[in-house]
């Protein structure tokens, strides 16, 4: 999963059997799979033979056997892994992971202790940052999760950088053989204040400590313990990534013309009354035409316009707002008379001026809080 001397020498190397690959179907729709000669990946578009992937570079598009859909094959990274991993516990996400790695001052060669391992989301990023000469010692009190995590790290090619130990750190602290050797310690525990003294023994002078806690009470007890156990520069902060969605919206620029929907509604109702429901087909047809435009956009994705964010509005595939003129024309085709309000007028005057603008706004619902990050630095003694 990580960069290596090989990938540095050959950044365009092709996919091969045994590689882990992230199958990307859409922004919130990704899975990981391992390439196997003769293997097959199935989704709602059908089967995608692995043999078609072998020999092509990562980042390629694969077409289904039936030819009606496609997937993208991306090289796995810790960020993508966070999106595809099996959640055995609540995990850390990109914003927190980035801040932890950065403020713990991690870099190649660093030694970091982590507990609990959980689903290994953060662990992959820790491994990436300390590679190739550092090490991650991670501790998990749930035996089965510890074993699963160890298997996953090995399968993902970071087994040589990560040592998983089944141990309850809140009960027994970190093992003594880490005394004074860690450059950084990370805690994601219910009672981190219990572990602060052990962390103080393990972190080298001027090394860094971080605790991730959803609750403010945990933070308060942790800060008090840090101050009493040889830590300084306590800092508690929150980070979040606010997702934004991008779309194109037609915005009316003509302030004088009546709004389209009012013209249409008036027209439809008048026509219905006049023809006694005979125009239901016309109305339904028009409604279907509109829905068809939306539906087209939806069906094309992920085949065509790949939605770039949650809740993305339809793109230019949606036609212009039908004007009263078109409405009248449809009605006319179906043999009804145009309503008195809809006298035939030159199309330019009737077509409402709209400007299709690229707009962006925050996605309405998203993560509001993950946890507080509390950082501290190990004091350097005078003698």
């Amino acid at each position, binding site marked *: 999963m990580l960069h290596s001397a090989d990938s540095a020498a*050959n950044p365009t190397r092709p996919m091969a059997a045994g590689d882990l690959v992230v199958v*990307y179907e859409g922004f919130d729709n990704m899975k990981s799979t391992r390439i196997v000669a003769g293997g097959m990946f199935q989704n709602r578009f059908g089967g995608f033979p692995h043999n078609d992937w072998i020999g092509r570079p*990562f980042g390629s598009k694969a077409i289904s056997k039936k030819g009606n859909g496609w997937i993208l094959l991306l090289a796995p990274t810790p960020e993508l892994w966070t999106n595809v991993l099996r959640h055995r516990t609540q995990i850390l996400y990109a914003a927190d992971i980035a801040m932890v790695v*950065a403020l713990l*001052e991690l870099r190649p060669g*660093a030694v970091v202790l982590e507990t609990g391992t959980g689903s290994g989301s953060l662990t992959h990023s820790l491994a990436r*940052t300390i590679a190739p*000469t550092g090490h991650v010692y991670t501790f998990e009190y749930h035996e089965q999760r510890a074993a699963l995590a160890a298997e996953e790290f090995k399968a993902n090619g970071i087994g040589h950088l990560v040592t998983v130990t089944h141990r309850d750190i809140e009960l027994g602290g970190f093992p003594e053989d880490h005394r004074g050797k860690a450059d950084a310690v990370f805690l994601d525990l219910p009672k981190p204040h219990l572990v602060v003294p052990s962390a103080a023994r393990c972190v080298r002078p001027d090394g860094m400590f971080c605790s991730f806690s959803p609750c403010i009470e945990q933070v308060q007890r942790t800060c008090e313990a840090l101050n009493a156990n040889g830590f300084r520069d306590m800092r508690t902060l929150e980070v979040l990534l606010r997702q934004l969605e*991008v779309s194109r919206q037609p915005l009316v620029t003509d302030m004088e013309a009546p709004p389209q929907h009012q013209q249409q509604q008036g027209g439809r109702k008048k026509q219905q009354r006049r023809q006694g429901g005979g125009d239901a087909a016309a109305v339904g047809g028009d409604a279907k035409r509109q829905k068809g435009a939306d539906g087209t956009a939806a069906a094309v994705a992920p085949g065509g316009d790949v939605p770039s964010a949650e809740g993305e509005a339809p793109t230019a595939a949606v036609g212009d707002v039908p004007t009263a003129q078109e409405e009248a024309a449809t009605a006319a085709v179906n043999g009804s008379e145009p309503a008195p309000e809809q006298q035939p007028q030159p199309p330019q005057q009737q077509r409402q001026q709209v400007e299709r603008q690229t707009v962006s706004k925050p996605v309405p619902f998203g993560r509001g809080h993950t946890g507080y990050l509390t950082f501290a630095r190990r004091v350097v003694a*005078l003698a």
Partner: protein
Amino acid sequence: MAMPLALHGFYICKRIMTAFPATVQVGDTVIFDVGERQAVVTIDAKSDVKLGKAYYSTAPIVGCPYGSMFALSADGKSLERIEHTPLTDWDLPVDTAPDTRNNAELVDGGCDAQALCTADIEAMKAEGTAGADIVAALTANSVTFAAKTEFSQAKYKKKKAKKYIQIATVRRPTALALCQAYFTSTPVKTNYLRADTLALLLNLANVAAHARVLVVEACGGLITAAVAERLGGHGGVVSAWAGGVGTRPPPLGLWRNINLSIAQRAGIRLAPLHQLLTEQAQQAQQAGGHCSCEPVPAAEQPQAAVEARAAEGGAAEPMDPKPAVGSPAHQPQQQVEGHAEQQAQQAQQSRPQQRDQQQEGAQQIEEEAQQLPARTGNGALQAGGRGRVPGTWQGQRVEQHQRLQPPFNSCILASATLSPLALVRHVLPLLAPSATFAVHCPWQHPLAEAMDALKGQSQVANLALSESWYREMQVLPMRTHPSMNMNHGGGFILSGTVLAPQQGQPPQQ
């Protein structure tokens, strides 16, 4: 902890190999943190730092561990190491007896509340009264102090301590620490790049050892520095700039301030984008014009070594103390002619420097980069004056030079004056299939337009536009709450993954 001379040499060698050199050495840059202000200082025989109102020699700092604290010696003439003392915030009795004090009758009398006047305080300082004693005197002479609540008293004492007790901490200049230092005092130098944003850019672009990274930035070189730190000497980063032939680079000198090792510095290259595009086009030609899965041909390398060696002469690293971040405006020294050549000839390190001789980092890097196109067009940075490793560097250079050429598998773009869409399209040919990129912009709309134009075009996928949100907390017993002030200037990030050219289509032009 003083460093015996015999061990000094050992620790110099060890520094090349350890991730965290433990002690400050001559030639290192440090962050001299006095609380409200952090100065970025390069330590040499003549450098000094400001504590309180005066400047003091940095000599006592040499050999001390990073993280050491200093105060003024008893005679007030030099810096002296002191022990750290824990905060007293958690010592206050909590809810033992109902505290009936409040500020219902506290009237702000301005100066009348304090019996001591400015002259008295200055006299105390002149006598050499310790800061703690001044604070005690102020507390005793404040008519309103006794009536304040316990919390209010603690806050008062803290505020006075900040002003009268001068304590400094010598910190390691990590890229993040520098980012925060510049952000609080002179953010214009790093184009207001906030620490959480920088952290995100590094992760979203998948920067790590052995990556081949392309950076286009206008943040003073801070992003390049942060990338070099994450590379740890494995892989390479090219810091590039847009504009045609002859365009001068923006200031990119901040990589000098993070104490990079020789191996790390060898992995940094400064080059204009047009040159990288030329290299990429040459590679494509040699590979027959289709997406190549072969490494850079060996024929390139001897030429590159010659270029690199010639470039070294112009890219040697000066040892000037950096302008103190947050210090009052200084007089930029006139550029010394041929400064870089002089240093290339001298193999020695520290030169005597006047505190006033403070070069703008921008002037230096521009001078070096301008020399380079005249000679080689290749901005590969060499180890320079700080302990060159003889005999082996050429082997290093040839092997690493490949890492400093396209295609790149990691890309960070953070140049606020350039249209993100135009810049992404411009650098796409330089990026390998499945390369991860992150584009930062202080404004939302240019990234929205870029995202709108790029999605569905089959050149990039996994596009995400996000805003980085950040808030600090005050954590104290009975007084925990988010900080009253908050910075909203993290900017916006567009991230994504580059797709391989579709089969049957020509590579991205």
